[in-house]
């Protein structure tokens, strides 16, 4: 892909551009009122990082309690609050906002648009988020504590048997949902309407494609989540009985509704990651992405299939055999397009000219570790075996492989990849490598042995465990602390980058990088593509 003309706002001295420049407010107000996609992207990314650290601190509490058998540090009720809020923060506060931040920064630059289509809504969709999480976090200080029913908030534990903080939980999930939907609408409208001339659908970078599909998933399922929390609210406080058998309701129906949202949600957290990896691997292989079209089709089929597999989270709830079979087969089917993705990445590297800069290191780690998570997912799909795995640490290991070494690693890869474009300076490569190796080793010490304790019979969401699990849990906790500390290296690196410390970089930044974002200057000017480029 190449462009005929690339317009840079700063080069032009016509009055219109100057006008823009002079009205950027300074200080806090700039960030509060900004409608600029790059500013909003930055806000989202910082917010996600702070949430990642807060959610991580809660994980440290969990791991500290599980370091040894017996109750040492927290009581079981507080332990449950920690797992619940950790899960909620990581999913809705860290991973999703980080991807939205990347979409804000990158989608307009990748399709040659001057900004997002709905910039004011963009500002809102970010700025309601901090309030959602303030509400959620403040609920921990209420009498009776915060939500303690797991991030899956199964009824009736979350209805008749929860504390009053449930109202705050529901309210904050509503706000998160509204924010996500607004963000998703913005992405859809931008991609459908603002592509530069010549940027046909099948020329769009895969990150744009995967985000387009993710945005449709978000618009489809966030309202379902909103419905679920609303029913929990009315069951608890207004006397309805959607999920109460005594009133003619059904607690298992809650799980159907939740997972109808929940399974597409896990793809919401991984499809953009596929887009990122599909950008990074070709660059450092110096070779075009293998099977672009099949990547697009695979993404679309994963998204469609994700709507018909939700009950694989519910095999033990007592469904009819026919339903169990259907959801088993449908789930196994998803591994086909997912496999295609992995094969395509490997084929892209095959006979390339490989170098291993920090983004590529994270991308390769992603491919291996995400695949391990995918393979354990395939094992979980086998219903009779899932009866043994379900709600044990085997599942905890599985979803952390796909979420932490999958989604989170892809986000880190993306930050390393595009950071020089954003700041105009190369980040501290030594620190980046330290961050990578420390994270890689500790994350595997943290999550790999969890497979074993899970298989040996350790249930999840317990604050204390039988003695035969003690050795492994000790190592897992050590891995957890090490992984937590490793992220501080990343924090230092990002702070240095934001203060623009480092060697200046060229426009292309990485030898082998292709796409519109590498044709504009580094750092990317405040306004780009005010006159659209033309793509041949």
């Amino acid at each position, binding site marked *: 892909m190449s462009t005929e003309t690339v317009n840079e706002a700063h080069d032009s001295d016509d009055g219109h551009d100057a006008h823009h420049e002079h009205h950027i407010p300074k200080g806090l107000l700039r960030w509060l009122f900004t409608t600029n996609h790059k500013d909003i992207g930055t806000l989202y990314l910082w917010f996600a990082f702070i949430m990642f650290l807060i959610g991580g601190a809660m994980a440290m509490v969990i791991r500290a309690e599980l370091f040894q*058998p*017996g*109750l040492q540090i927290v009581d*079981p*009720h507080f332990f*449950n609050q920690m797992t619940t809020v950790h899960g909620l923060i990581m999913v809705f506060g860290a991973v999703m906002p980080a991807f939205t931040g990347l979409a804000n920064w990158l989608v307009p630059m990748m399709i040659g648009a001057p900004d997002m289509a709905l910039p004011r809504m963009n500002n809102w969709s970010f700025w309601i988020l901090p309030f959602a999480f303030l509400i959620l976090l403040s609920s921990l200080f209420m*009498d009776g504590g915060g939500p*303690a029913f797991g991030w899956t908030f*199964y009824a*009736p*534990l979350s209805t*008749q048997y929860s*504390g009053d903080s449930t109202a705050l939980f529901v309210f904050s999930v509503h706000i998160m949902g509204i924010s996500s939907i607004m963000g998703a609408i913005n992405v859809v409208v931008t991609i459908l309407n603002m592509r530069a001339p010549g940027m046909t659908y099948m020329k769009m970078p895969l990150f744009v494609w995967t985000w387009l599909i993710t945005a449709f998933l978000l618009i489809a399922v966030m309202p379902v989540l909103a419905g679920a929390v609303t029913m929990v609210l009315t069951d608890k406080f207004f006397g309805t009985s959607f999920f*109460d*058998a005594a009133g003619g309701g059904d*607690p298992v129906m809650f799980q159907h509704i939740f997972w109808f949202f929940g399974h597409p949600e896990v793809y919401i957290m991984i499809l953009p990651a596929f887009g990122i990896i599909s950008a990074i691997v070709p660059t450092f*292989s110096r*070779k*075009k*992405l*293998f*099977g*672009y079209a*099949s990547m697009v089709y695979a993404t679309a089929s994963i998204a469609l299939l994700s709507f018909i597999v939700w009950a694989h989270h519910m095999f*033990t709830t*007592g469904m009819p*055999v026919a339903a*169990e*079979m259907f959801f*088993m087969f449908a789930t*196994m089917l998803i*591994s*086909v397009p997912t*496999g295609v993705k992995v*094969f395509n990445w*490997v084929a*892209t590297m095959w*006979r*390339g*000219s490989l*170098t*291993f800069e920090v983004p590529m290191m994270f991308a390769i780690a992603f491919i291996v570790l995400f695949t391990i998570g995918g*393979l354990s997912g395939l*094992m979980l799909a*086998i219903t*009779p075996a899932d*009866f*043994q795995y*379900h*709600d044990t640490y085997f599942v905890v290991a599985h979803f952390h492989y796909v979420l932490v070494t999958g989604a989170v690693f892809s986000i880190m890869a993306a930050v390393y990849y595009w950071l020089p474009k954003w700041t105009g300076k190369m980040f501290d490569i030594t620190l980046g490598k330290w961050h990578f190796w420390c994270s890689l080793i500790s994350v595997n010490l943290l999550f790999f042995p969890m497979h*074993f304790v899970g*298989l*040996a019979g350790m*249930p999840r*969401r*317990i604050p*204390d*465990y*039988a*003695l035969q699990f003690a050795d492994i849990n000790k190592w897992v906790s050590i891995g957890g602390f090490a992984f937590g500390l490793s992220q501080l290296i990343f924090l230092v690196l990002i702070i240095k980058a934001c203060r623009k410390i480092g060697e200046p970089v060229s426009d292309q930044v990485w030898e082998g990088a292709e796409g519109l974002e590498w044709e504009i200057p580094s750092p990317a000017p405040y306004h780009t593509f005010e006159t659209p480029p033309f793509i041949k």
Partner: protein
Amino acid sequence: MNRISTLLTGVMLAFSNSAIATTAAERSDLNLRPGVSDISLEVYDLHMLMFWICVVIGVLVFGVMFYSMVMHRKSTGAKPANFHENVKVEVLWTIIPFVILIAMAWPAATTLIAMEDTSEADVTILVTGSQWKWHYKYQDNPDVEFFSLLATQQEQINNKFTKGENYLLEVDRPLVIPTGKKVRFLITSDDVIHSWWVPDFAIKKDANPGFINEAWTNVNEPGIYRGQCAELCGKDHGFMPIVVIAKGPAEYSTWLQEQETAAIRANEEEQRLLAMNMSMDELMTQGKKVYDTACVACHQANGGGLPPMFPALKGSKIAMEKQNIPVHIDYIINGKNNMPAFGKQLTMSEIAAVVTYERNAWGNNTGDMVQAKDVNLMINGK
């Protein structure tokens, strides 16, 4: 293959082999257990089959990738090739996984169908979960029913005593089932969702309030099998284990008979207690015992509770004011909101004792005494 990928393969195999080797042991700390029923063995085999398929796929894919990472480095002068699609290859690697999947789906489906066939059972047991204990009722012998609670001492959990071998996996009254018979479990709950899980039987079934689920097993070997609740069910979810003792059919019938006679004797004892008064000391001693097993989880050892979830009994109006004695007893018999009902779990004399205890412990010194016959009056109106 080159050095690195061979090394990688070796490491993966070593990992998996060590996992396999230990499965021979009775209780593996690293892998699923083959268990003690035909079904659990089938599930185990399925698990190992899946595991090996995944290992092979992993080794192949990562092998190719690592090969490329070593051989196609820019630093060794590799020049990028030009290809970026190949319909034949792409179709092939869509179809081959598909075929592998069908090969896996077949045995999985047959096992699944067998697992869900609960017909023609020899023994049926109703399993009811509630916060945080299990209740077992033998449907064919209605007199035999009992609660099963965690037996690990609080002091072990709080690190004051050393932890025993079966720490957190021991109960006061285990479930007893016969070997060589098809035992069907009807599983339900009185409050939130729990999940009844015994790994050695490959049974994990949710206990849903208001609905009944079914599961079955046919145990081949006598022994003691331990499991835990598997669905988050509130504060003490980690503390509601399951212990099942499988006995030979003859031993099982003897046991069952003993339980029936014991139930009848307990009934007679209850009648006898109804006729007499216990002293304050007796009531307090027994009351403390009951309180420490049945109430302490929520209302705490010092009576302070965990407000606002679980109210304090120390200084509570219900536990202090004379006119509230019937209310106090009623709370325990029938429960209220999130306070579970204990009418089934505790005998009348136990209820009398715990009420007396609560009215006189932690400085609640009301001097009130409640006798079994007062409780009987509330339950039976006589």
